């Protein structure tokens, strides 16, 4: 049966994919730590929640940036759309299931963001890096203006008030200590991370990397380039929408700054800081970025930007491939996952 050369190659390919997709112990340790940290440092639960949301958002950007080579400065548009979708749902339900149910909110936010992602993907996948950066940025800015204009729906610059999500799975109420929020966000992050991991190690994911490496060649070997790029862009938009929904639900509010330019820019920084195209870079980068900010700004509320900037500069100058690159070098694994 498996004697034909073709079959053997296929087996080899699958074995390769499987080996790539195997869970390694540091990964398991990382996730165990992520969950344990909420119990170990209950006073930092809110920060952990924020990191998890940011990590999910960065993860969604890494999907298009690291695996498909699409640069974007407007990813915040999907984050914002997700946040407003979940926020409005929770508000409409006034704290009672079914409308205010957090899970429903996540799904609705993901779906809405995905639709908009698909619609805009036709505009985005053209031109060089600069063009892509500016088109995505322009779309995000238009969304921000829209949210400001339709202030009777979005609450405008005052923010959407009265966002009251129901209990998570009908069991856990959002508490002031942020424990529920942190567990909820980390769990969602973990589940979506696993899904992303499966996707990037699937033949679909491999084909994306082929496109990123050389779109012409990928097209020549029969990869439907545009359709694949649109698919991953839509998926990433859905991820970003879910991240936005998490923020709306766990902070019980949505303000215009979910669509702000700096959110997209920060996320781009986080992905580069963590290491592009590694998935874990997004998580590690988000944690590093937030903790650096938190640590430095507790010493200097006015000038923390200076030190954060310095760290970024030094990192680019002396470390290749962000934090994940650094880790790989230190552990002697130069291979790229």
């Amino acid at each position: 049966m498996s004697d034909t050369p073709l079959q053997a190659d296929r087996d080899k390919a699958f074995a390769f994919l499987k080996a790539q997709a195997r869970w390694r112990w540091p990964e398991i340790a990382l996730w165990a730590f992520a969950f344990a940290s909420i119990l170990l440092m209950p006073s930092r639960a809110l920060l952990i929640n924020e990191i998890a949301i940011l990590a999910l958002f960065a993860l969604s950007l890494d999907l298009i940036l690291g695996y498909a080579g699409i640069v974007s400065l407007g990813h915040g548009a999907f984050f914002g759309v997700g946040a407003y979708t979940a926020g409005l749902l929770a508000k409409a339900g006034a704290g009672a299931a079914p409308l205010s149910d957090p899970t429903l909110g996540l799904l609705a936010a993901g779906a809405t963001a995905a639709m908009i992602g698909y619609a805009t993907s036709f505009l985005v996948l053209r031109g060089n890096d600069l063009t892509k950066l500016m088109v995505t940025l322009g779309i995000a800015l238009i969304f921000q203006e829209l949210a400001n204009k339709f202030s009777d729906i979005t609450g405008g610059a005052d923010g959407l008030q009265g966002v009251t999500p129901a209990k998570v799975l009908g069991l856990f109420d959002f508490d002031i200590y942020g424990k529920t929020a942190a567990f909820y966000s980390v769990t969602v992050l973990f589940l979506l991370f696993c899904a992303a991991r499966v996707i990037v190690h699937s033949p679909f994911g491999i084909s994306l990397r082929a496109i990123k490496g050389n779109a012409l060649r990928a097209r020549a070997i029969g990869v439907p380039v545009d359709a694949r790029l649109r698919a991953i862009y839509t998926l990433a938009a859905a991820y970003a929408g879910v991240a936005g929904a998490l923020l709306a639900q766990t902070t019980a509010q949505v303000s215009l700054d979910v669509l702000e330019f700096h959110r997209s820019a920060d996320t781009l920084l986080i992905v580069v800081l963590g290491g592009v195209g590694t998935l874990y870079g997004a998580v590690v980068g988000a944690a590093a970025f937030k903790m650096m900010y938190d640590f430095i700004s507790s010493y200097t509320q006015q000038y923390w930007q200076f030190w954060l900037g310095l760290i970024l500069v030094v990192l680019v100058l002396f470390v290749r491939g962000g934090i994940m690159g650094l880790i790989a070098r230190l552990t002697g694994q130069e291979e790229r996952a």
Partner: protein
Amino acid sequence: MHFSTRILLLASAFAFTVPALADNATPVKIGVILPMTGPSASTGREIDAAIKLYMAQKGDKAGGRKIEIVLKDDTGVADITKRLAQELVVNDKVSVIAGFGLTPLALAAAPIATQAKVPEVVMAAGTATITEASPYIVRTSFTLPQNTVPIADWALKNGVKKVVTLVSDYGPGIDAEKAFSERIKAGGGQVLDNLRAPLRNPEFAPFLQKAKDLKPDALFLFVPSGFGAQLMKQVAERDFAKEGVKVIGTGDVTDDEQLQGMGDAVLGMVTSMDYSVAHKSPENKAFVEAFMKANPAMRPNFMAVGGYDGMALIYGALEKTKGDTDGAKLVDAMKGMSWVSPRGPISIDPETRDIVQNVYIRKVEKVDGQLYNVEFETMPNVKDPVKAAKKAK
């Protein structure tokens, strides 16, 4: 009493009382959340400086307990404000949260105040509805309608019939626009157009041109603290005075902090506001002198005085409760409190927990080579008109 001798007396009083009290009192922590970086940083700096000044003057004790400030920078982003408020309450165990540079930031913290039963002292944000977001919110800044209605009255009294408004397109701007337009209409005037400029807009020229083409009697302006200088540069270019158009606004536009940089073009502009650095009173003289001494590069503005009075409110409430930090008790103590602030006599409305204060009509004049908002008319004890109207219904 002379100012410095008062400080001296206060200082010596503390020198004697400190050892006696240090043992039995754990400090009272006040969490201050301000935008210290980003577009609204100047608001944060003014308030921070005022808080430090207050503590330097009045000592770090109130109601027999030591006061500790925990300052956090929210960069002007609402979800960070909320997280910081939550952390301050849960981890730092603060008894009061204070600050809040912008309306969405104050609203973001409101559920925390309600849930944790911690007083939220709003020292800057000015949308009327903020105090309704939580029974624990008390405001020491101002509300926009409160500062806007008096200038509308002044305009009507001075023969203005047709007006155009130009405001920043966000909550407080729309608040100001509404309050002004309604008052003008109620007084028999006519509103030709309501123009709204995007909040982050480097170019006001087209809006101003439009306003000029409509040929109103007066143009009403509102932009938040920090944007005034740029707007006024462009207003100056249009030369409204030549067309007989009065340029009026709230004092946010002729913000004391930036007024000096606006140049002579703003001379003669009439605005209404709760505080001017040129307010003539011994309290204000002492405040301004001390503030400028501690911060030579900065002029105190209405934000600073909001922070200063916020501290006075917290100190006063702690004195009343004798150091009891129970949130409900503190808010009760704050209700109805009245004192003489650098801006004049002020009090906290026991029903709305909002500030009641004099609003002054001022004109920009040059005094000793420097530009000041010189007050020439006082509307005494103005309550927030929005909430007053609601009550009347």
